[in-house]
């Protein structure tokens, strides 16, 4: 193989000051946008709208960070070498798990401090918190005791969420901090340790994202269920994470970092993952739709019935064309995937579509009779994403920006696509 024998020196491993500055700016912009969103919520939109928009933004950001975590686990379980050169960038996002968990805290506080004597707005969001809703809920619900009594109750909910956060925190920390430790020690056993643990952690991750998605998003509509929910969120998250990764790679290189390290072939592969997960997301989304539509049973059809009238049908059609058909044709060509401006265009497009997807999931529970103005949700989503990305860049600035002593780095630096 015509390898190029790339040697990295100290400078190549440091983040340029301009990029670190950008991280700070993004962090600031994130705070500002979040405050704007919250202010809009308190003044114009109303608390209930604010809560739903908050959950939309949370779902948007959470799927991206979790997409990063599973991406990282997959790299380790396959012993993949192509992405070693860019893995540190991906890890910087996953490293922000504690910040993501922090974003959940206002929600958890509202739930924890709510009670039938002093209900707050969260009762209108998570209806099952309200005992009068539960008792008044249709008597024909055969598993009412199980659903409300056993599962959807305040205490168990909080315990579960804390459980997910513990798992996610430790998963994120294990895989990111071991990778950074290897920069010092160069120990091959660190790689082996991460490979070995990644395998059993993947099913644990699958269960965690499934139940987290169930609790945060599916419980907004307590009667409805979909067994493919976890997969659906994983698909959207993996897709969006690869978009963020592509944009971050370009940002790094624009500021002069990783110019020797990242090749066109790396962009090509990230683009391939974006393309693959556009198809995968569409497949899962359509599977979910087809089964529910075909059976048309009253307890399941409500989800899609709500989303095909009163203006929501336009959002649904937008998802069909904007999240599936157009990006599929757009990302087909290998030349698009190897051309940075084109790839950036599709990355931004798909991130917008992922936001629309989360909006489409959450907001009909706020108002099924018309499509609410999205500004609060947009401000919060952009704010949270800025926060996470900005903090990720800033946190990455104190470490090497490449996994310098990973045993597979050489392969990655010389990585060739045909």
């Amino acid at each position: 193989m015509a390898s190029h024998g790339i040697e990295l020196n100290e400078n190549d491993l440091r983040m340029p000051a301009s990029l670190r500055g950008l991280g700070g700016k993004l962090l600031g912009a994130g705070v500002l946008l979040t405050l704007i969103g919250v202010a809009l919520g308190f003044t114009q939109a109303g608390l209930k709208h604010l809560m739903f928009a908050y959950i939309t933004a949370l779902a948007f950001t959470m799927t991206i960070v979790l997409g990063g975590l599973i991406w990282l686990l997959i790299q380790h379980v396959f012993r993949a070498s192509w992405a070693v050169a860019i893995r540190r960038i991906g890890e910087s996002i996953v490293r922000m798990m504690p910040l993501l968990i922090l974003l959940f805290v206002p929600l958890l506080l509202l739930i924890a401090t709510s009670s039938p004597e002093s209900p707050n707005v969260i009762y209108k969001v998570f209806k099952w918190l309200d005992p009068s809703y539960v008792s008044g809920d249709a008597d024909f619900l055969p598993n009412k005791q199980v659903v409300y009594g056993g599962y959807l109750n305040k205490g168990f909910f909080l315990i579960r969420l804390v459980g997910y956060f513990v798992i996610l925190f430790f998963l994120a920390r294990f895989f990111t901090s071991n990778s950074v430790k290897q920069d010092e020690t160069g120990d091959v056993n660190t790689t082996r340790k991460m490979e070995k643990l990644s395998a059993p952690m993947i099913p644990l991750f699958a269960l965690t994202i499934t139940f987290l998605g169930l609790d945060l998003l599916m419980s907004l509509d307590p009667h409805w269920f979909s067994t493919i929910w976890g997969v659906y969120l994983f698909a959207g998250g993996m897709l969006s994470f690869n978009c963020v990764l592509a944009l971050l790679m370009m940002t790094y290189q624009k500021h002069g970092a990783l110019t020797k390290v990242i090749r066109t072939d790396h962009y090509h592969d990230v683009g391939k993952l974006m393309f693959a997960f556009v198809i995968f997301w569409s497949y899962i989304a359509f599977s979910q739709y087809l089964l529910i539509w075909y059976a048309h049973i009253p307890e399941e059809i409500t989800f899609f019935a709500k989303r095909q009238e009163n203006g929501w049908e336009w959002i649904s059609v937008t998802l069909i064309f904007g999240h599936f058909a157009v990006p599929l044709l757009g990302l087909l060509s290998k030349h698009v995937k190897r051309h940075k401006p084109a790839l950036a265009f599709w990355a931004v497009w798909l991130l917008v579509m992922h936001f629309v997807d989360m909006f489409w999931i959450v907001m009909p529970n706020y108002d099924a009779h018309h499509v609410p103005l999205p500004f609060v949700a947009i401000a919060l989503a952009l704010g949270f994403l800025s926060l996470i990305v900005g903090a990720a860049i800033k946190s990455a600035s104190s470490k090497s920006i490449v996994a310098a002593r990973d045993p597979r780095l050489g392969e990655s630096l010389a990585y060739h696509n045909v």
Partner: protein
Amino acid sequence: MDSRISQTDGDEPRWISELKDHDDNSNQELYAVVAEYDTPDALMAACEQVRDAGFKDWDSITPFPVHGIDESMGIKQSILPWIVLGAGLTGGTIGLLLQWWTNAIAYPFIISGKPFFSLPANIPVIFELTILLSAFTAVGAMLALNLLPAFYHPLFRHPRMARYSSDRFAIVIEAKDRLFDREKVEALLKGAGSVGHEVLFAPEKRAPLPKVFHGVGILATLLTLVPLAYIAKARFTKSEDPRIHIIQDMDMQPKFKAQVPNELLGSLWGDARASLLPMEGTIARGEFVEDEALHYGQDESGNWVTSFPVEVDQALLERGRQRFDIYCSVCHGHAGDGNGSVNQRATALARFGGKGMAWAPPANFTDPRIVAQPVGELYNTVANGKNNMKGYAAQIPVEDRWAIVAYVRALQKAQTVPVDSLTDEQRDALGSN
């Protein structure tokens, strides 16, 4: 040690000389020059030189894929992706048109209450056909673009060809290239660092097909027509034989069928019917009718009974009201006026475009003709139906039928009683609503 990879380059293996012996003594002409290289880097460098020199009919042979060799050889991007895209779109369109035409045009019937042309239900087949045609076309087009299958290639006679799938690399420049000049080519390849080269000769004409193949080919082609001939014969002739029934399943069952003469029964007692009338003087279990007035609403002479064979009390009337509301009010209305919801719907349809719908309205019980009917006749209508109304004997047990009849009488009375015969209290009660 593979005996075909000979140590000395001069000796050619026996199988090659045997091949050459079989060469029909036809003229051998120069086919190509083959140069050997022992590292991929050397090969790539040589490829670049050949590419830059402008040769077109040439190729390189490597035992494993060499990254970057496409560029070194100046090979342009294949058109295969476009062919596959075309095939995929074709497949999707075929899936869509197939389902649209068969489900909405050719043989429409309702499946699961979905529209005839039902796009979400059609997606799986559309998707599958897209993938299928894409995949098959990718394989087929890839082979075709590589001019495969190729049953023979002059390179097979090259003594060192086996090495090129093992640990050596080669460049082959064919003589048919317009820039080909033997000395120049040999010099170029040598100058690019080859460790050896050989000139390959091939017969100018391919050896003719052995005569046997012609005979076998004609015979095989004729044999394939035989099944077609049988099919044509079956298609266009009539036959008295039963059709060939390969998968029997449970189709031929040794049982007695109702409308078919059964030989065994005929031989047993002379009557070949499997469903017989009951024997004279017997009654089937559950068919015994003790009270004919109760069951048939008729007396022995066949006249309709005029009095109820059951006791008519409040309980009977209540039961009758409940049963009437269940079974009868849909058509006859809750007041028995013949304008139940079915009638309303049917008249609306007939008025607004039911295709040639003729609707006979259900009976209005206050019609004098029906008021004059004896209760036995009313009972018979409930049990056995009248005109378009089907009998309800199967759904309504005997007692309930009489309850309904009692209630019908009550409805009739309520709507035909003259106002004067009401007491003041009754009038007030009615008027207060």
